C-alpha cells in the first residue's frame, strides 16, 4: 500500500506529534507514505470563509502534483482532509470550474486520484486486523471519549466515510487496541475551530461543554483526529474549568499516538512530552490495568 502524503501546515508545527505518529504507525503497518513535493496550504477555514473559488484552487494545486505521482492522497488533519475532499468533488463535478482552475496550474488535476483521511486508511478492515495482530501493549483501563469533531464527518455528501450523527470508526480503532471508549454526547460537536484564536470566549464555552460531558460519562482522556480540536481542548480547558467551576483537566491524544502506543512502535512515547496538558494520568490508568510487558519502551 502506497499513498501520497499531505501533512499540511499544522502537522509541521503545532500538531507535529500527529504528523510524526501518523508516519511511524504507517511505517509499522507497511503502508508507504510519500510526501507530496512542494505541497501548499489547503486554505483551511479562512479560504472558504472569504473566497469560494480560492478554496477549491488551493487544494487543486496539491492534488495535481499528487496525480502526477499516480497515488491517492492521505491527509490526516480533519480540516485539510475536508478541504482537499471538497476540492476533489468540486473539480470532478464542475467541468467549467475544473478547466478554469486547471488553466492556472502547472500540474492540472483531472480527478484521477482521490483523497482519504488517515482514520479511513487505518480503520479499513484489513488494516484494522493488522493493527489488532500487532497490539503488544493493550490499552486496557484507558477510557477515551472519541471526539470526531466537525470536518471529518460533514458535510456527509462530500466526506461521508462514517455516520455524521453516530460515527463509529474512531471507536472501532480504540476497541482494536484494547481501550474502552465511553458512550457520550459530544462526539460530533464543534470546538469552535479557528474562533479559538479570533473569538476565544466561544472556544472556552464549547471546550467546557465537551470536556464536562466526557468526564460525566467516565472518560479518562479524549482522543481526536484534528489538530484544531486538540489545540482548543488543551489550550482552553483551564479557562473552561474556571468558568464552570469544575475540574476539567483532561489529557487529549491524537488517535495515531494511541495506535502507536498499543503497537509499541519505537519513538511514540517521546511524542507525549509535546502535549500542553500532562498525559501521564491517562497513561497511568493503562498501566494499572495491565502490567508493563518486559522490554517495553521507556
Amino acid at each position, binding site marked *: 500500500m502506497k499513498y501520497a502524503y499531505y501533512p499540511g*501546515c*499544522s502537522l509541521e508545527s503545532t500538531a507535529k506529534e500527529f504528523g510524526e505518529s501518523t508516519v511511524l504507525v504507517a511505517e509499522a503497518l507497511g503502508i508507504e507514505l510519500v510526501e507530496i513535493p512542494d505541497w501548499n496550504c489547503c486554505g483551511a477555514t479562512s479560504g472558504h470563509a*472569504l473566497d469560494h473559488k480560492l478554496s477549491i484552487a488551493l487544494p487543486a494545486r496539491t492534488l495535481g502534483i499528487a496525480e502526477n505521482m499516480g497515488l491517492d492522497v492521505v491527509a490526516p488533519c480533519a480540516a485539510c482532509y475536508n478541504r482537499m475532499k471538497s476540492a476533489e468533488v468540486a473539480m470532478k463535478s464542475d467541468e467549467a470550474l475544473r478547466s478554469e482552475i486547471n488553466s492556472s496550474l502547472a500540474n492540472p488535476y483531472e480527478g484521477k486520484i482521490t483523497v482519504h483521511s488517515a482514520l479511513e486508511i487505518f480503520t479499513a478492515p484489513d488494516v484494522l486486523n493488522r493493527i489488532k495482530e500487532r497490539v503488544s501493549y493493550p490499552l486496557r483501563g484507558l477510557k477515551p471519549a472519541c471526539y470526531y469533531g466537525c470536518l471529518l464527518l460533514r458535510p456527509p455528501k462530500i466526506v461521508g466515510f462514517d455516520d455524521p450523527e453516530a460515527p463509529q470508526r474512531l471507536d472501532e480503532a480504540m476497541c482494536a487496541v484494547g481501550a474502552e471508549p465511553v458512550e457520550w454526547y459530544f462526539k460530533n460537536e464543534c470546538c469552535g475551530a479557528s474562533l479559538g484564536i479570533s473569538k476565544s470566549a466561544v472556544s472556552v464555552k464549547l471546550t467546557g461543554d465537551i470536556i464536562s460531558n466526557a468526564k460525566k460519562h467516565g472518560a479518562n482522556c479524549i482522543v481526536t483526529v484534528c489538530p484544531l480540536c486538540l489545540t482548543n481542548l488543551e489550550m482552553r480547558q483551564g479557562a473552561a474549568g474556571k468558568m464552570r467551576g469544575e475540574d476539567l483537566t483532561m489529557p487529549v491524544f491524537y488517535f495515531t499516538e494511541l495506535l502507536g502506543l498499543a503497537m509499541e512502535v519505537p519513538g511514540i512515547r517521546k511524542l507525549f512530552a509535546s502535549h500542553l496538558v500532562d498525559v501521564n494520568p491517562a497513561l497511568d490508568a493503562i498501566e494499572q490495568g495491565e502490567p508493563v510487558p518486559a522490554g517495553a519502551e521507556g
Partner: protein
Amino acid sequence: MTNFSNKVTSLVSENAQCCCELSLVEGPTGSELKRRIQELCGENVLECYQCGECTAGCPVAYAMDIAPNQVLRLAQLGLEDEVLGSSAIWLCAGCETCATRCPKGVALSRVMDACRQLALERGIKPKEPEIAKFHDQFLTEVKRFGRVHELTLTALYKVRTKDFFSDVFTGIQMFLKGKLALIPSLVKGRDEIRRLFSRSRHGSEDS
C-alpha cells in the same frame, strides 16, 4: 424598512405534495441578495421553511445577534443590511452541522460564506472585526509563503488587533516544546500560488 411584500408572493409553491416540498415563490421584483447568494454558493434561500433545525444544532448560535434561521429568513426578504451587517455571518464556525441536518437540504454554512464575501465586496464593516482580520491575515500568509507559518500568523494577527497579551504564556510553552517553527517553510511554486490568488476575489485586495 424595505418593502418586501412584493419580493415573496406566496407562502408555498402551489404543487407541493408534502411539507418537504414547501418552498417560497419568488415575487416579481425578487431579491438581489437572494440572487447573489445563489450565484456565489449555489444555495437557494427560498427553500427554507423556517423549521429552526439549523439554529437548534448550531454551537455558536448563543453568541450571535440574529439566529441562523433568521439569517435565511432575512435573506428571503432581501434585507441586505440586516444580514450582511450581522455578527452571525462572522461567528459561524463553518462546522456544517446546519447543512447536514437541514430537511430541505439548504447548506446554510455555504450561505454564510457567501454573505461574508458579499459583505466584504460591498465594503460593509464586519461586525466581528477580529474574526475578519484573522481570516484575512491567514490568507495573506498563504499568499506570501504558500503555507501558513503559525508564529508569523499569530504575531501579525496580534499586531493588527492590538492584542499583545492573551495566550502569550501558551505561546511560550508551545515554543519551548518545539511546536512553533521559527523559520517559515516556503513553497517553491509561489508564483503559481499568487496566480491562483490573482484570479480570486481575495487577490484583488491589497493584502
